[in-house]
């Protein structure tokens, strides 16, 4: 009886061990497949984000190369973040990128004005040429239809405001409205449930009541910039400081930029680009001067490419990268070059630009 019991117990232990063994292996196999599923899910998510960011990069490049063209693109719902550091610049660009879903792409030399974050499924891209007076670069503006731009102006600032409004009217995708006021206190705004509201005030600095705007927008996200100047140049006041603009494309850059640092960073990139382009124009002008100096028939043309013209080209680039930008120097150089170009054409000489 004792032996039978012993055998029975051993058999039971063997059967129980078999079940424990199967259970253990089952758990291992199950956790292996769960692990693979999690890994695959993460990889695919990263892959999709990467593809979106890559497609977005191509889209931004294509948009940048088609000035005066606005595009609206539908994207998967992804939050895009744009960064640009004005204090971290090399000789050719500044540390900047855009990212989505943990994947980022560098925009070191791309002049791109955008809010810090953009979410939603509709992306609006728009590009304009920046000319001083020759083309320096294409500025790219990126926004979404969930961002509303409110242009408010009074009689004293209407010329520049109308110029900006007319330019913005060329882009039908942007959510925008224009308000003309007699007094800054007449301004009122309604909440339209936008993700973000950017108020662009062509008014005296600090004249709008921020408390009234805050309560009207039901404490939604908004901010305000003041613009004082002409179509050619002026000052932009952000919440965190002032900056100078030269030309309407730069002014629009401020309209689309999230803050002062982002705007200054991209303007810095544009200035660096101006240096390289300016060098090419200066070298070309010098070469034309030498060519016409040796040409007895058209030697009178040399006048349009002499040292003063070359210096004007160089001074534009120098000013644009200077710490303290002097708008007057740029304006003088630009108008001198414009006049010089017109006279060169009259005399049958090649244009400088």
């Amino acid at each position, binding site marked *: 009886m004792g032996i039978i019991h012993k055998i029975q117990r*051993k058999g039971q232990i063997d059967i129980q*061990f078999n079940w424990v*063994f199967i259970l253990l292996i089952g758990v291992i196999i199950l956790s292996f497949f769960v692990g693979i599923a999690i890994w695959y899910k993460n990889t695919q998510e990263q892959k999709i984000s990467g593809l979106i960011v890559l497609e977005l990069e191509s889209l931004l490049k294509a948009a940048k190369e088609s000035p005066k063209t606005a595009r609206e693109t539908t994207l998967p719902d992804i939050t895009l973040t744009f960064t640009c550091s004005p204090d971290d610049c090399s*000789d050719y660009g500044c540390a900047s990128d855009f990212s989505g879903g943990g994947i980022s792409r560098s925009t070191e030399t791309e002049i791109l004005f955008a809010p810090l974050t953009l979410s939603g499924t509709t992306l609006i891209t728009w590009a304009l040429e920046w000319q001083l007076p020759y083309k320096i670069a294409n500025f790219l503006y990126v926004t979404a239809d969930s961002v509303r731009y409110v242009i408010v102006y009074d009689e004293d600032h209407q010329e520049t405001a109308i110029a900006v409004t007319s330019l913005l009217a060329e882009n039908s995708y942007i959510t925008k409205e224009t308000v003309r006021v007699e007094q800054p206190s007449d301004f009122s705004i309604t909440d339209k449930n936008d993700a973000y509201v950017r108020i662009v005030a062509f008014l005296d600095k600090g004249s709008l009541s921020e408390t009234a705007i805050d309560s009207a927008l039901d404490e939604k996200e908004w901010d305000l910039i003041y613009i004082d100047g002409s179509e050619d140049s002026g000052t932009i006041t952000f919440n965190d400081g002032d900056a100078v603009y030269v030309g309407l494309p730069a002014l629009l850059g401020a309209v689309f930029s999230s803050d002062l640092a982002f705007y200054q960073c991209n303007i810095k990139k544009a200035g660096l680009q101006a240096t390289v382009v300016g060098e090419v124009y200066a070298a*070309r002008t010098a*070469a034309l001067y030498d060519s016409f100096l040796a040409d007895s028939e058209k030697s009178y043309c040399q006048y349009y490419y002499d040292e003063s013209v070359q210096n004007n080209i160089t001074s534009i680039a120098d000013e644009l990268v200077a710490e303290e930008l002097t708008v007057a120097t740029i304006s003088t150089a630009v108008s001198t070059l414009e006049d010089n170009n017109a006279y060169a054409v009259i005399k049958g000489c090649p*244009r400088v630009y």
Partner: protein
Amino acid sequence: MKKWHVMQRKAQMKTTETIIVLIIFFILLAGGMVFYAKIQMYTSRQDAEKAQEQDAISVEQKIRHLSEIPCTNDGTVIFDCYDLSKIRALQEVINNHELYYSSIIFKNSRVTITSVYPVADEITLFEYAYADEATGVQLFRTPVTLYDPVSASYNFGYMTVEVYSS
């Protein structure tokens, strides 16, 4: 004792069966994984080729839209027309900004501008320093108009962008 031996053998056989099943299972699993890895390798090789092609197109597009060399009329760019004097000026400027042009604009490419008619000429705008070590090359040829401001004449030609892969 005989019965005990039979039971022991039966239990051993069951465990051995399970182990064999598991071994077969893991062999099949490993086979599947090897197959999946091979497909992934093939796909990623294809993706790499596609990315290289896109890279080449991107370099070509960048060159076509450079602010430095197009023909301009009071600042207005004339598309697919290049100013010969600007190209020559850019050759000089590239030497001063080697890093910018080699790492950001031209990257791993060789750019030549060939004038065909009425004047036959060829200008090499940029030469990739490690072209000899490259394993492949993607070639893009675009017909262009070349303007000579000194003689105020236009030439027909083409721009060749050879993008090297390593």
